[in-house]
C-alpha cells in the first residue's frame, strides 16, 4: 500500500464531552465535543512513545471537513460520517442525540471516518485534513479560505444534467443504478432488523416473568421448592442477557449504515461524471452551432431557419464589412471553443479514469468489510444461541432435581 498518513500516525477519537457555548447566532446551546488524539508512529524508537497531540472538535466541524473533501475531490468516493440523528431505532434505543450510548457509537464512527480518510491514498495527503487533526485554532477560517464552496456544484445543475445527458459512460450508469439499489436494500434491512430486535427483546423479557412466578411458587412447594427457585433464577439471567446481545448487534447495524451512506457518496461521483459529460455535450453542441453559423455567414446560404436569416431578408442584408467582422468573432469563438472542448474532453477522460480507479478500490474495500461484518454477525448469533442453550440446560437440570 502506498505511503499514507495512517501508517505514519496513530489517530484516535478517544473521548466525548458535553459542552455548552454560544453558537453563530449567539444562542446558548449544548453540544458534544470529541477529543482527537494523534501520535506519530516512530519506527525507530523502541519503548519510547512520541508525545500525544490532542484537540477537540465537534460534529459540525467534521461535516465541514467532509464537505471540503467532497468539493475538492469529486472523483473520490469520500468516506461517510456517522449519522447525524439516530435512525432505525427500535423501541428501547433512545433517539436522543445526547444519549450516552448514541454518543459512544458516534465517537467510534468518527474515529472510523478519520481512519478511512487517513488510509486513503489520495485523501490522506490533503493539507486541510492534516491541519484538522493537528491545528486547533483557525482551522475553520483556513477551510473557508480555500473557497471550496465555489467548487461545489449546485444541486439543481446536477439534477438538470442527470436528465439531459445523452451519452454518459455506461459503467457509471450501472454504478448509479447499483448504488440506488444498494441504498434501498440496506435501508429495508435495517428497518426490518430494528423490528426483529424489538420483538426478540419482548420474547426474552417475558421470560423474566417466569422467574418471578417460579420464585413465588417455590415458596409453597416442599420437594420442588429448591428446583423451582434456581430455575427461576436462570430465567432471570436469560431475560437480562438480551440487553448485551442487542447492544452488540447495534455495532453490526452501524457497519451496515456506513455502507448505506457510502452508497450516497458513490452516487455523488456518478453525478459529477454526468455533470461533466453534460457540460461536454453542451460545449460540443455550442461549437457545432457556431461553426454552422460561420459557414452560413461565409457562404451566404441559410441552411436552417434562423432569426438572423429572417431579419436580413426583411431588413436587407448586412454589408460585407459587418459580415467579415462577425465571421472573425465567430472564428475566434470557434477556436476558443475547440480548445475548451479539447481540454474538457481531457478532463472528462481523466476524471473517468481516476474515478474508476477509486471505485475499484472502493469495491474491494466494501466486499472485504461487508464479509467481515457478516461473519461477526454470524458469530454473534452463534454465541447468543450458545448462551440460550446453556440457560435452558441449567434450567433443565434444576427441573430434573425437583
Amino acid at each position, binding site marked *: 500500500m502506498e505511503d499514507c498518513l495512517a501508517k505514519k500516525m496513530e489517530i484516535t477519537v478517544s473521548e466525548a464531552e458535553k459542552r455548552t457555548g454560544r453558537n453563530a447566532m449567539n444562542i446558548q446551546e449544548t453540544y458534544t465535543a470529541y477529543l482527537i488524539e494523534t501520535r506519530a508512529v516512530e519506527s525507530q524508537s523502541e519503548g519510547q512513545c512520541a508525545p500525544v497531540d490532542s484537540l477537540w472538535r465537534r460534529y459540525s466541524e467534521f461535516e465541514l471537513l467532509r464537505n471540503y473533501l467532497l468539493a475538492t475531490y469529486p472523483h473520490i468516493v469520500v468516506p461517510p460520517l456517522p449519522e447525524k440523528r439516530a435512525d432505525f431505532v427500535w423501541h428501547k434505543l433512545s433517539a436522543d442525540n445526547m444519549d450516552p450510548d448514541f454518543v459512544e457509537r458516534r465517537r467510534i464512527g468518527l474515529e472510523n471516518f478519520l481512519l478511512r480518510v487517513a488510509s486513503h491514498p489520495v485523501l490522506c495527503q490533503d493539507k486541510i485534513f492534516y491541519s484538522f487533526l493537528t491545528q486547533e485554532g483557525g482551522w475553520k477560517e483556513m477551510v473557508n479560505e480555500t473557497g471550496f464552496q465555489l467548487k461545489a456544484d449546485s444541486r439543481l445543475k446536477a439534477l438538470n444534467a442527470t436528465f439531459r445527458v445523452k451519452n454518459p459512460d455506461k459503467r457509471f450508469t450501472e454504478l448509479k443504478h*447499483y448504488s440506488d439499489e444498494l441504498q434501498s436494500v440496506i435501508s429495508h434491512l435495517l428497518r426490518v432488523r430494528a423490528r*426483529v430486535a424489538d*420483538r426478540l427483546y419482548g420474547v426474552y423479557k417475558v421470560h423474566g416473568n417466569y422467574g418471578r412466578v417460579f420464585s413465588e411458587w417455590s415458596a*409453597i412447594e416442599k420437594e420442588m421448592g429448591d428446583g423451582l427457585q434456581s430455575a427461576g433464577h436462570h430465567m432471570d439471567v436469560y431475560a437480562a442477557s438480551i440487553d448485551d446481545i442487542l447492544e452488540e448487534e447495534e455495532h453490526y447495524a452501524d457497519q451496515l449504515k456506513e455502507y448505506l451512506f457510502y452508497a450516497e457518496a458513490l452516487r455523488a461521483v456518478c453525478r459529477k461524471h454526468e455533470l461533466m459529460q453534460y457540460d461536454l455535450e453542451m460545449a460540443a453542441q455550442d461549437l457545432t452551432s457556431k461553426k454552422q453559423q460561420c459557414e452560413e455567414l461565409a457562404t451566404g446560404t441559410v441552411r436552417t431557419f434562423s432569426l438572423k436569416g429572417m431579419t436580413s431578408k426583411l431588413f436587407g442584408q448586412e454589408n460585407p464589412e459587418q459580415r467579415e467582422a462577425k465571421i472573425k468573432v465567430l472564428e475566434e469563438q470557434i477556436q476558443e471553443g475547440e480548445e475548451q472542448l479539447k481540454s474538457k474532453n481531457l478532463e472528462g477522460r481523466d476524471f473517468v479514469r481516476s474515478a474508476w480507479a477509486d471505485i475499484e478500490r472502493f469495491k474491494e474495500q466494501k466486499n472485504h468489510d461487508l464479509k467481515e461484518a457478516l461473519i461477526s454477525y454470524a458469530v454473534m*448469533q*452463534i454465541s447468543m444461541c450458545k448462551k440460550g442453550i446453556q440457560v435452558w440446560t441449567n434450567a433443565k437440570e434444576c427441573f430434573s432435581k425437583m
Partner: protein
Amino acid sequence: TTRAEFDLPEYSVRRRYQDFDWLRNKLEESQPTHLIPPLPEKFVVKGVVDRFSEEFVETRRKALDKFLKRITDHPVLSFNEHFNVFLTAKDLNTYKKQGMALLSKVGESVKYVTGGYKLRSRPLEFAAIGEYLDTFSLKLGTIDRIAQRIIKEQLEYLVELREYGPVYSTWGGLEVELSEPLEGVSACIGNCCSALEELNEDMTEDFLPVLREYILYSESMKNVLKKRDQVQAEYEAKLEAAALKKEDRQKVPTDVEKCQDQVECFNADLKADMERWQNNKRQDFRQLLMGMADKNIQYYEK
C-alpha cells in the same frame, strides 16, 4: 392386563367423550372420598375451534389417554366396576341405561354435600392443603398466561423474521462476490423460522394442556376437600347427637391418605412435564445453532 377380574388379557373398544364423562361421574359417585383425575374440557373456551380439527382431536386424545392411565395407576379406583365395564363392554349404552336406576343413589350423595352442616374446626393439615391448592392454581394460572404471552410474542417475532431473511437474498442478487454469503444468511434465517415454529407448536400441544389439566385437578381437589369438610361437619354434628355412624369415621382418614398420594403423583408428573418442555426448548436452540454454524463455515471457506 393381568388382573383376575378381567376375562381377557386385551381389550379394544371405541368410546366417545360422553362416555368418558359418564365414567368420571360414576367414579365420583361411587368413591366420593377419592380424588378423580380431571377430564379435558368439554367445551373449548377460547374462540371457535373446530371440534374435528386434527390438532384438537389429537390434544384431546392425549389428555384422555392420561386420564385412563391415572385411573389405572390408582390402587383403589382401578378396581371400580364401572371402570372395568368401561374398558371392556362392547355396548356401553345398555349398561348406562341400567345405571339410570341408580338415580336415587345420586340424590343421596347430593344430599350429602348440601347438608349445610357447620364445621367446627378444620384440622390444620387440611387447611394447609386448602391454602396450598389456592396458591397453586393461582400460580399455574399465571404461568399459563405467561406461556401464552410468550407464544404470542414469538409468533410476532416470527413474522418479522420471515421478512428479514428474504431481504438478504435480494441484496445477494445485487452483489457479485458477496452473493453467496448473503444467500447463506438468508437460508439460516429461514432455518431459524422453522425451528421457532416447531417450538411454538410443541409448547401449545404439550405444555399448555398439562398446565390446564393441573388447574382442573386443583379444582376437583378443592371440591373433595369441601366434601370432606362437609363429612367432618356432619360427623361432628352426629357425634353431638350421640348417634355414631361407624362409616363416617372411616371415611375421613382414607380421604387424607388419598389426598397425600395424589399430591405426590401430581408433583412427580409436573416434574416430568417440565423436563419435556426444557427438551423442546433445547432442540430449538440446537437447530438455531446449527444454522448459524453453517453460515459461519461458508464465510470462513471464502
